[in-house]
């Protein structure tokens, strides 16, 4: 089997310091055989974008618990388009109320995983979505 390992960037945008979810999901994705890079805290969207391109990742996973997910996602999706990197899969986890799910999907966010989503669901989703591409 020479199947390429999926590369994921787990990113913490903005000032929010709640990183338990980000780290825990990073662990789970790694256990599922993916290569995981974690940005650390307090990242700007530009920094996240830069790291994603430099590391040539297949997936960006944003972890946001501050409530600022809509403006952050909008900025990131626009940035990806500008950089011609629209093929990078973007998923979001954290404190994301249901009423915002449609808005995020309309922006091009592929998967939304609110707090307490099972690892299995996240892993299956990413594997499925990346392999289709």
């Amino acid at each position, binding site marked *: 089997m020479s199947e390429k390992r999926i590369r994921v960037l787990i990113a913490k945008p*903005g*000032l*929010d*310091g*709640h*990183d*338990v979810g980000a*780290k*825990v999901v*990073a*662990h*789970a994705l*790694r256990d599922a055989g993916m290569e*995981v890079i*974690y*940005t*650390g*805290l*307090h990242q700007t969207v530009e920094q996240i974008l830069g790291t994603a391109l430099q590391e040539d990742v297949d997936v960006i996973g944003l972890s946001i618990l*501050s*409530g*600022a997910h809509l*403006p952050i996602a909008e900025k990131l999706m626009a940035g990806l388009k500008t950089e011609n990197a629209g093929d990078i899969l973007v998923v979001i986890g954290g*404190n994301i*109320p*249901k*009423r915002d799910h449609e808005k995020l999907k309309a922006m091009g966010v592929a998967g939304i995983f*609110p*707090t*307490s989503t*099972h*690892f*299995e669901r996240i892993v299956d989703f990413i594997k499925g979505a990346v392999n289709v591409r």
Partner: protein
Amino acid sequence: MSEGPKDAKGEKKKEEKKIRPVILESGIEIKPVYGPEDLTDFGYERDLGNPGEFPFTRGIHPLMYRSRPYTMRQYAGFGTPKETNERFKYLISQGQNALNVAFSLHSQMGIDSDDPRAEGEIGRVGMAVDTLKDFEIAFDGIPIDRISTSLTINGSAAIMIAMYLAMAEKRGVKLEDVRGNAQNDILKEYIGRGTWIFPMEPSIRLIADTIEYCHHKAPKYYPVSVCGYHIRESGANPVQEIAYAYCIARSYIRLVMERGLPPDEFVGRFSFNFDIHGNIFEQVGKFRAARRLWARIMKNEFCCTSPDSMQMKMIAGGGGGGLTIEEPENNIVRAAYYGLVSALSGTQTMALCSYDEAYTIPSKKAALISLRTMQMLVEEMGLADTVDPLAGSYYIEWLTNEFERRIMQEMTKVDSMGGMVKLVADGTIQREVSNQAYILEKKLQTGEIVKVGMNKYRQEGPREEQNVDIHEYNVDSAKEKIAGLKQVKASRDNASVKAALDKLRTAAKGKDNLMPYILEAVKTYATVGEMTNAMKDVFGTFKEPVNL
């Protein structure tokens, strides 16, 4: 019954083989029954002592809540200082007797409201503070001589403490009479919560500066509240919660000792902030052991003689980590039990996470329910009547002993690996805590640890935002905050602001205590961001070790 009578011991043994093992989150395996055989080496004087006496296992005061019930201090703050002031007044009018200020995230990070990085954050999770003016507004009409205030602030704590002291002075309260406390525990911010600004060394220096300054000028002020709470919320188990907090506290104490202050002079003004969720008895054992161990460490390791130094003072509150998004009303019940645990454990101050906090900052209604819960325990249910009511229980005393042993073991482990400061700097503690968080999350997902309504008896289907009023981000109040800052900047004496900031920057390069310089800048209405940047020019910023 066809079988003949059996002796009780044999019967018990046989039964025990059939039952499932119970292992607490702390890794302690517990038996179904405890008796005198579990406390063979138990000495009342040595292990418990009377309440108010060494080693303070039973509580730090002789009569505990009978002479003064625990302080009720709900965490509150949002939007502008004016909005926060209204919430403070409401809580006080309902019987709350202390305040606990929540700061906006950008204020916690030393960033002003008019900075682009604050966009979308102004007042979202706490009160936005830019200058002394904001403290004046937030505490307007609040009897600060009677109501003590806790500032939940870390990265920018030296500045916020200075603002509180300056505000109190302006109100005519002498510095030596100012009461209150600040969280001001930067080491735990590197482990969890993440509102760090400067690298570790200057950050810890600022902690020592505040302790030393308050010791000399504001001796009633508690400058540090070491937070096991956030370490536990980040994944640590209850043993690590206490062990890491004590290792952190020891680091601060040693640093201040290096400045020539003996511990008995300042350790009495240390307090702790601990977490409650999970197994009820485990928490009670944890707190009783923690109190005893602190007394022993202070007496034996730091050679303290003042009882005040040996008395572990704590705020112990219901932890957000115990609450669930599913069926949020269940969190009211959970918080009530957490409050019960806190009262049974002899806390000095209580605060409970409100039932809607898995969704939003607490609504007025949710905050009131939390306050009422704490009041019911004291005034309806007899929790204030008798000190340490679980003392002498075979199970609780055994658990207390076991906890003390394990906390010491964990502390020795930290010491043998190079000490807390080193292990935080290289990310070892962070990695340990996030590994624990991963293990815990897996146990929750498999149902090995049960959360009713979440991973057991779960209702499928739409679950969102039931009966919870989401706190909406208020764009108008954010605009008002920025306009207010503009006004302050226009009306202050900008030459003296600049002079004070220059002095602060210069002092940061040397070894002086920075508090007098910060206070001077605060009094010129310099902003949080301006002061932070002046120090950042010298200190730089922290580079996070990101080794998962």
